[in-house]
């Protein structure tokens, strides 16, 4: 099976550590993943902000770059949902028969937890992460993709983890793409309630499958100097007891802290 990684433009630019973690994780599980360098963006920002025509070339590019693979894995629920549910609509708006055909025959796109649980059929990925973690189910991963319990099943199998429930977990964090700017007051009000839940959980790490949502909640947690950090699901699942391979993360302060902590196995900072 030829598997391609769709990193997403956001992760590529803002949080490459997540991409490195996905590669580490999949290679550890014996899955060779390719990264076609022609990839850019799924078009979600354009589509959801009302610029449907502007995302036509992006959808076309996506189809061309990934056409020859058997499966695509993406560490983002909202980008996977965009591709699975809305690329068809973009092709319709464009009125382009060829594009419609390309979208119909495109390989299946899996969000990371779906790929691990459904395609590779693993829940114990051999991770070790001795920290108190709470998980936020992002709206698009849970309501649009229906990933359900998969991320939690993966997290529960991590050795050393202290996984605690997030109060009002299913409530939206308030990010919402350009909503965070256009309606920043409401966005922050929603984020403040999410932060309250995170603090109530007394977790040291807030985990999710979408770095964009984590950037929003993480931005609030950071502004308030709460000492809670955010990590993508992939980064926790990639953490291992002998994590020399993860030292590639050096240079990204947040990632470096995490791998250092993982390296000092057994000595929880709490």
């Amino acid at each position, binding site marked *: 099976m030829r598997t391609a990684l769709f*990193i997403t*433009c956001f*992760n*590529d*630019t*803002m*949080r*490459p*550590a997540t*991409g*490195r973690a996905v*590669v580490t994780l999949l290679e550890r599980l014996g899955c060779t993943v390719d*990264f076609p*360098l*022609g*990839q*850019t*963006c799924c078009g979600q*920002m*354009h589509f*959801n*902000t*009302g*610029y*449907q025509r*502007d995302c036509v*070339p*992006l959808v076309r*590019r996506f189809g061309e770059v990934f056409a020859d693979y058997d499966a695509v894995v993406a560490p983002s629920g909202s980008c996977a949902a965009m591709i699975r549910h809305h690329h068809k609509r973009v092709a319709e708006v464009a009125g382009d028969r060829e594009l419609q055909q390309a979208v119909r025959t495109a390989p299946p796109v899996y969000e990371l937890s779906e790929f691990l649980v459904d395609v590779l059929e693993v829940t114990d990925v051999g991770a070790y992460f001795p920290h108190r973690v709470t998980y936020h189910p992002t*709206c698009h991963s849970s*309501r649009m993709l229906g990933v359900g319990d998969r991320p939690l099943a993966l997290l529960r199998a991590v050795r050393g983890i202290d996984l605690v429930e997030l109060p009002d977990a*299913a409530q*939206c964090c*308030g*990010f*919402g*793409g*350009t*909503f*965070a*700017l*256009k*309606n*920043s*007051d*409401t966005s*922050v*009000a*929603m*984020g403040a*309630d999410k932060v309250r839940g995170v603090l109530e959980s007394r977790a040291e790490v807030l985990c999710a499958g979408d770095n964009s949502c984590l*950037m*929003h909640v*993480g*931005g*609030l947690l*950071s*502004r308030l100097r709460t000492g809670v950090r955010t990590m993508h699901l992939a980064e926790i699942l990639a953490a291992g007891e002998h994590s020399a391979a993860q030292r590639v993360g050096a*240079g*990204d302060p947040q990632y470096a802290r995490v791998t250092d902590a993982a390296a000092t196995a057994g000595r929880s900072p709490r």
Partner: protein
Amino acid sequence: MSSAFLGMPPFPQAARRALADTQLRRNLAGATRTIRDKRAEVVRELPDWEELREAGRALKERTLRHLDHYLLQLEERVTAAGGQVHWARDAAEANRIVTRLVQETGEHEVVKVKSMTTQEIGLNEALGSAGITAYETDLAELIVQLGEDLPSHILVPAIHRNRAEIRDLFRREMAEAGEVGDEPAELAEAARRHLRRKFLRAKVGISGANFLVAETGTAVVVESEGNGRMCLTLPETLISVVGIEKVVPTWQDLEVYLQLLPRSSTGERMNPYTSTWTGIEDGDGPRSFHLVLLDAGRSDTLADPIGRQALNCIRCSACLNVCPVYERTGGHAYGSVYPGPIGAVLSPQLRGTGGAVDRSLPFASTLCGACYEVCPVKIDIPEVLVHLRARVVEETGERRRTPSPEALAMRAARWVFSSPARLAAAQRVAALGGRAVGSRGRVGRLPGPLAGWTDARDAPAPARESFRQWWKRTHR
């Protein structure tokens, strides 16, 4: 639509004001959570809930496809049963018809059953300017009317008020209230005494209808307080103002909605009162019945293949109660009698996207999808929101002589994302910015429109090495 909401600022500004009201935030958080939990409990009881939703959606869509047929059938049956049908193209025409009908009775007072449609057209204000006083008889509507306030929820229009505030209002505005306390039973008793006189005196009743059954020409109102039953049976003249999308073909179809509506709306298995009436009956109820069928943007909405699903709405308000935006801003911020997610897709379609409020509404959502999950007739509200955003963007582009800054930014993003080389170059520029921030790894202040982000949130610094750079360095 109702002039009462005229002059409201667009959603983001109205929301900012609402968010600063701590009492409102507390009232809303408490009330929406209570209804949310009640709904979830009674929905869980039904093993065929998903099938019911699907039936509710399919029936509405089929009826709307053949709306002309069912409306004519309805008119024929209502007329045959002794009622009179009036067609109103818009709010102004509906108001003129109702005003004339009331004037023909010689009365100067009417009692009203809670009705979204008459609020939508601003009927009370129109009657008022003709010297006719309309008394709202639903408890929450009464609270809104006495306080010269605006409704903020479809089912519980006074959801933004708590009982201490209502007690103060009753003591101030209601002669019968005396030194009433803040216990719900006491407040309800005061309202009951206040309203009873109005019911017994009124010669004209005005209502909406939740459903119109085409096969028999029957109007249906579901309610909880019994005030509707009073208004529908005691007066000599009954005038019902109903949107054309409220028609269902048969009583069998009605059965589906009478299961879906109360569970979604009040979180009850069954609503306390369901009143149905077919034309007029000698010696029972009103002696004359008028049905005013209202278009007011509905035909236009029906013409839009994606937007038309908003007409499936049965006004249950489940989407309001689960909406994280509504829960924090309340209903007034939506600048319409239809607040919340359904309002954000309904108001811009019924009123058009000419005004700043209606242009802002499709963007008043994170697209979290909680509304779609609970909608009893499966309106894909996020889909319609995104569709309306595209409409607003397109119209804005046509109206302006030069592209908006946002449109320019989107174009630039398209240009960057259309080429991996350009994306890589943009990432190198971003990385320079990241380096400038140093080792703190967070950005406290950003300029221009991005300041909205950093007002309350730190921003992450772009990575020094993008993922694709790392991949090229390590995997080739």
